[in-house]
């Protein structure tokens, strides 16, 4: 695994900032939730990505969505608590069903079961919920977190449900008794600073063989304008013990925002710093102690999410616009107040990888 | 008054022949001060006032009661001059000056043993001020006794809080401390209302230090310099255009920056093994050391004289000390000029100037307000004006007043491990005492101690803090023990010990009656001592 090099090939963006960008299963679409009540899509079949019609009558931020493992179905949740299901391949997708108050407030994460028959959601109301995919009917409520639940994910082998919160508490749920079965300690990602709760688990993933659970975030140094060293913690799924902790940068690199395994087996992580440096790094998951990443791209601005194309090569990283911060009134040539956007960096390997 | 005036006229006509005032500055001081006002001038201080004041100013503490009493009872006419000369030779002179210059130059930013050694060595040897300044801006690493002078620069390059390295702050302080000019508000443009302070002045100073850095390869403070290749470019927020400057002192010539072929900038290249940074062939600080503290640099001379005047008189002839400009002129410009010239002519001999000021009638005036002096302003020097005491002066004075000096253990070589019992008790060593007094009375870092600003913190320390109260406990030969041996007549030894004078009849009656009337004399004695220690008369240098 030497000489891995990725290069940027395109960076589609639109008139609203975007959250996590994901590839459709056939690789032809790139989908992301926006900061104002809808989802955006880009078609990737041509040389230049082109934007399709937005969809989803959401409110606020559409941060959470997941794609059904087999069907062209997408479940999305917004920051007001609304949940919807759409066929995302339609030209003008209409909701298959819609739940206005699936959660009280911000839905942070959605994850499908392995067959897609049900899915899990979690959010600011500190509750994890299980719904039936076909009609949005509520099946379970899991209570046990004492903080905003940032992530929920399903084990690739046996549908175990795991959720992680803003305090760095990770719970493996007992589905028969609707309560926590085991807990993993990622509290190193959390700091109570002055009046603020800082950090928490920002991203999670499984190792391909399902034996290791990874949680990423920051080891916060201070709140307000957060600084901290981005960290990735690996837990043994079997024992809940920590098996590694990898630091991904300096205190100005702040958050490990997303992490994923490449089909070829190496680990990928993106970070978002303050001020705005974003980095993509690939790591040898067998040798995490090695200081040098297999690949490092550090000239991006804040990176917020990471997804791998089904063909196993292209990756999509949502970023932001350089220079998009600053105090006071910034206007364009016509005197209009300038907003912000989220270019999605599409990168492919420079040369075929072995 | 008239006599002084004619003396002054005589002096003026003679002043062009330099030997007269070159030896005796203090008559010139007095003549200048007196000639500048028509209003009444206060008489000389009493012996009690003088002995306390001169001890505080020259050795940083009040006299012991024996020293005070001896001086008061001495009938020789030249006793003030004799005392001045004696104190200037005292070991504690260098301690006092080190403390005072540490506060003035470092403004409570921190402590460092090498810096302390530099100050002690300088004042013990009466090293000239220009040499001290040279050492500070271009430290000599080879000289173990003085290399700590680098702390002046290195401490200011250390980051504090969330701030980046404060290069502008360092440039500003070189201007403030050594030229009497606070150019902070001239960084981005010419000063908005001080016409004399130009942006080019600030940037010229900045160009001396913006390539410096703190060396990390030594265990003493040391300053490094990167190769300087180009002039410093700067913009004004108000004026169009690009400007540039090399290192340049206000009013003096710009230092040309030599060109070197890349790879040949270093006289000694960096050493990767020892991590010693390279020594560049061109170091602006070397030129700063040559140009800054020189007779040709008027601002330097005026500032030096002004600061030493401030140490003795409590106010600069230019005040504030770092804001000398045409719209904030000296209260006595000619005096300042003459003092500056004389100081330079005497090779910047600090002890000489201190002595001259101490010998002047201006310094020796009483601080008591008598007829016609109600309206006396500090800048007139018709009266000696009260001065604050530094945390260090308060500390040494309280130790002396209570007779505690002999009881301070030498903790410099003891092990640091303590029993549980010891940890609960008040730590007795001098370093702990110092820490307590600094916590109670010193300003926070970077706030100059030039005005009288008493604090509630200090008052509570004296009222209820364990330290001062501990010194009131009876110990062999301390003040409490001595007073406990008496049956009557407490007031005189009490006043001599704490306030360096004899009590008036009313004061004696008050204190004697109080102590005599209490059944628990020991406790009463402590309250009496405390009352004087906590009094305004004690806390103020008058």
């Amino acid at each position, binding site marked *: 695994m030497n000489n891995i090099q990725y290069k940027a090939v395109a960076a589609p963006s639109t008139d609203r900032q975007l959250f996590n960008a994901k590839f459709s299963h056939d690789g032809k679409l790139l989908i992301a939730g926006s900061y104002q009540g809808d989802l955006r899509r880009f078609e990737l079949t041509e040389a230049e990505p082109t934007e399709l019609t937005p969809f989803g009558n959401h409110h606020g931020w559409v941060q959470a969505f997941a794609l059904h493992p087999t069907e062209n179905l997408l479940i999305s949740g917004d920051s007001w608590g609304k949940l919807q299901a759409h066929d995302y391949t339609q030209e003008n997708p209409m909701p298959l069903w819609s739940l206005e108050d699936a959660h009280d407030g911000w839905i942070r994460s959605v994850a499908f079961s392995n067959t897609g028959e049900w899915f899990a959601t979690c959010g600011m109301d500190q509750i994890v919920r299980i719904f039936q995919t076909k009609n949005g009917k509520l099946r379970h409520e899991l209570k046990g977190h004492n903080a905003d639940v940032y992530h929920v994910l399903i084990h690739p082998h046996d549908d175990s449900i795991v959720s992680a919160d803003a305090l760095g508490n990770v719970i493996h749920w007992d589905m028969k008794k609707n309560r926590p079965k085991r807990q993993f300690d990622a509290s190193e990602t959390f700091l109570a600073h002055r009046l603020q709760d800082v950090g928490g688990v920002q991203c999670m993933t499984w190792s391909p063989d399902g034996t290791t659970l990874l949680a990423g975030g920051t080891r916060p140094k201070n709140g307000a304008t957060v600084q901290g060293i981005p960290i990735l913690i690996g837990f043994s799924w079997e024992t809940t013990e920590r098996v590694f902790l990898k630091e991904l940068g300096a205190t100005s690199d702040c958050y490990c925002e997303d992490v994923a395994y490449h089909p070829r087996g190496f680990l990928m992580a993106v970070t978002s710093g*303050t001020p705005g440096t974003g980095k993509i790094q690939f790591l040898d998951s067998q040798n995490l102690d090695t200081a040098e990443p297999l690949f490092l791209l550090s000239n991006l601005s804040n990176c917020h999410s990471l997804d791998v194309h089904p063909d196993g090569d292209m990756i999509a990283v949502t970023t932001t616009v350089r220079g998009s911060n600053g*105090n006071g009134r910034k206007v364009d040539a016509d005197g209009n107040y300038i907003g912000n956007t989220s270019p999605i960096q599409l990168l492919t390997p420079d040369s075929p990888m072995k | 008054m008239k006599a002084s005036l004619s003396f002054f006229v005589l002096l003026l006509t003679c002043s062009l022949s330099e030997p007269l005032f070159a030896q005796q500055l203090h008559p010139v001081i007095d003549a200048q001060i007196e000639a500048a006002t028509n209003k009444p001038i206060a008489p000389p201080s009493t012996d009690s006032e003088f002995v306390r004041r001169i001890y505080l100013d020259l050795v940083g503490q009040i006299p012991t009661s024996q020293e005070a009493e001896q001086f008061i009872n001495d009938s020789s006419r030249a006793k003030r001059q004799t005392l001045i000369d004696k104190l200037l030779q005292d070991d504690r002179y260098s301690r006092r000056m080190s403390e005072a210059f540490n506060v003035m130059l470092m403004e409570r930013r921190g402590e460092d043993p090498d810096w302390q050694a530099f100050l002690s060595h300088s004042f013990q040897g009466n090293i000239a001020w220009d040499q001290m300044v040279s050492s500070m801006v271009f430290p000599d690493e080879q000289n173990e006794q003085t290399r700590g002078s680098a702390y002046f620069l290195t401490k200011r390059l250390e980051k504090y809080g969330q701030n980046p390295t404060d290069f502008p702050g360092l440039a500003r302080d070189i201007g403030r401390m050594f030229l009497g000019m606070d150019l902070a508000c001239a960084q981005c443009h010419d000063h908005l209302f001080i016409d004399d302070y130009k942006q080019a002045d600030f940037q010229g100073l900045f160009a001396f230090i913006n390539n410096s850095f703190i060396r990390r390869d030594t265990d003493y403070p040391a300053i490094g310099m990167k190769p300087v290749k180009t002039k410093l470019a700067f913009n004004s927020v108000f004026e169009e255009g690009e400007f540039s400057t090399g290192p340049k002192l206000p009013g003096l010539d710009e230092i040309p920056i030599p060109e070197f072929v890349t790879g040949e900038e270093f006289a000694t290249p960096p050493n990767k093994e020892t991590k010693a940074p390279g020594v560049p062939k061109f170091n602006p600080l070397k030129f700063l050391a040559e140009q800054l503290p020189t007779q040709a640099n008027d601002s330097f001379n005026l500032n030096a004289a002004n600061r030493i005047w401030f140490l003795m008189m409590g106010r600069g002839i230019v005040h*504030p000390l770092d804001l000398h400009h045409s719209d904030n002129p000296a209260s006595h410009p000619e005096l300042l000029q003459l003092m500056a010239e004389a100081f330079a002519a005497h090779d910047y001999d600090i002890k000489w100037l201190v002595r001259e000021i101490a010998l002047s009638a201006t310094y020796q005036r009483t601080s008591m307000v008598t007829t016609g002096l109600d309206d006396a302003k500090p800048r007139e020097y018709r009266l000696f004006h009260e001065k604050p005491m530094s945390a260090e002066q308060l500390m040494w004075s309280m130790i002396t007043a209570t007779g505690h000096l002999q009881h301070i253990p030498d903790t410099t070589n003891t092990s640091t491990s303590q029993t549980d019992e010891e940890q609960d008790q008040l730590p007795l060593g001098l370093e702990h005492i110092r820490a307590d007094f600094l916590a109670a009375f010193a300003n926070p870092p970077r706030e100059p101690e030039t005005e009288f600003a008493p604090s509630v913190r200090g008052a509570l320390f004296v009222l209820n803090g364990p330290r001062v109260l501990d010194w009131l406990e009876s110990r062999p030969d301390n003040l409490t023990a001595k007073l406990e041996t008496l049956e009557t007549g407490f007031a005189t030894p009490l006043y001599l010990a704490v306030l360096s004078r004899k009590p008036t009849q009313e004061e004696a009656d008050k204190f004697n009656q109080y102590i005599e009337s209490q059944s628990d004399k020991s406790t009463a004695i402590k309250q009496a001592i405390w009352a004087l220690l906590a009094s305004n008369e004690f806390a103020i240098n008058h």
Partner: protein
Amino acid sequence: MTQSPNNSERHPLCNTAEHVFTRRQLLGGSATGLIGLGGLGGLVNPLFAKEMKSKEKQVLFIWIDGGMSQLESWDPKPNTQFGGPFRSIPTTIPGIHVSELMPKTSQIMHKLAVDRGVSTFDNSHSAGVPRINRGDPKDRGVIYPYFGSAVANLMGPGNSGLPPYVWVKPGSGGFKYQDAGFLGPKFGALAIGEGEPPPNILLPETLSSTNNADRNSLREFANQQYSQKRPPKFSEAQNFVYDTAQALMQKRSLFDNPDPKDVARYGDTPLGRDMLIGRKMIEAGVRFVKVNSYGWDTHGDNFNAHASLMPRFDQAFTAVVEDLDERGMLDHVLVIAMSEFGRTPRINGHIGRDHWPEAWSIAMTGTGIKQGAIIGSTNDDGTWVTSEPHDIGHFFHTWFNALGIDSEHTEYINDGQPLPIADEECSPIRELLS
């Protein structure tokens, strides 16, 4: 050429109010010296001073340092481009909504007055904080006092024996005399840091109260002797700090461990605890109490930050307002809650908001304030003020008037120089006054 950092990285000194205001000091004036005045500030027109002495109004000034986001608090714009994730919730005033992050405040909205049309000029902390605290007056060549020092001077300390201006804050305590500007150190703030009483506030056990009385009586005698023959300034300053120290000693119960019920009500957080001490100080009669909360400068991760910051403010703020109301104190205590600016509508690259003085909100209640007055408005996006914008000078006028001080005709007299107490180009906001 190497570039001097003077433009983009302006030295912090170039951003301070001293940049504009210290002409007098620079000209060698005695701005930082003492004001040797006894009793109530002689800097005020004497007739007015007499009148002020009789009133017992006080101020609780809640300073939210760093810039609370108006979009996540008083002026939400849900589901807009810049609105962020949160919903808005109705309040006890029909038609008025606040952010879902302040549910308790929504229930006392009818007791509050809020101006959502605040527009000020400074978008930096280092200069902005002092400017706002000083009411951003016109440059008169002096350093104007912070609002607390101004009130301490104009209204005096009252009968509590405590200092007139107490500052409850995290971090260091001590005497912060710089707040007083040209008024002199006597009108600075006594800061209580981390809820800790100043060190050495307790009379040692080895001293009886008789001992203490004796020693102070002797001390005062000695001071009288000394001051018979010396100028007053230094002596008065010393006497003042000793008097203040002793007043604090007598009121040391203010620093005792709080009642757990109070802690539960205000929240066991730094702000909750400090707000409780603030209430106790007000109850003890301190004229002006400032309570600080730090950590609001959410350039990065603004939304998660406000999600945890706002509820704690919400709890502490409503607790103190309701507490004062229950104790019948809201009719003579002016309560203000504000920052130095708001936060940008635009969401930056690290999901934060930057500084925004252009359009933000200030809340207040208490004496002289019209309850339920929600005035001022911004456009749909939250980018500009659409009503008559109000600068901080307007608020100083308003607050002085709420306290019974005629802001447009009262002046300080500084060394013979008359100085307006609030920006003469501004005026009181009548709609906020009862």
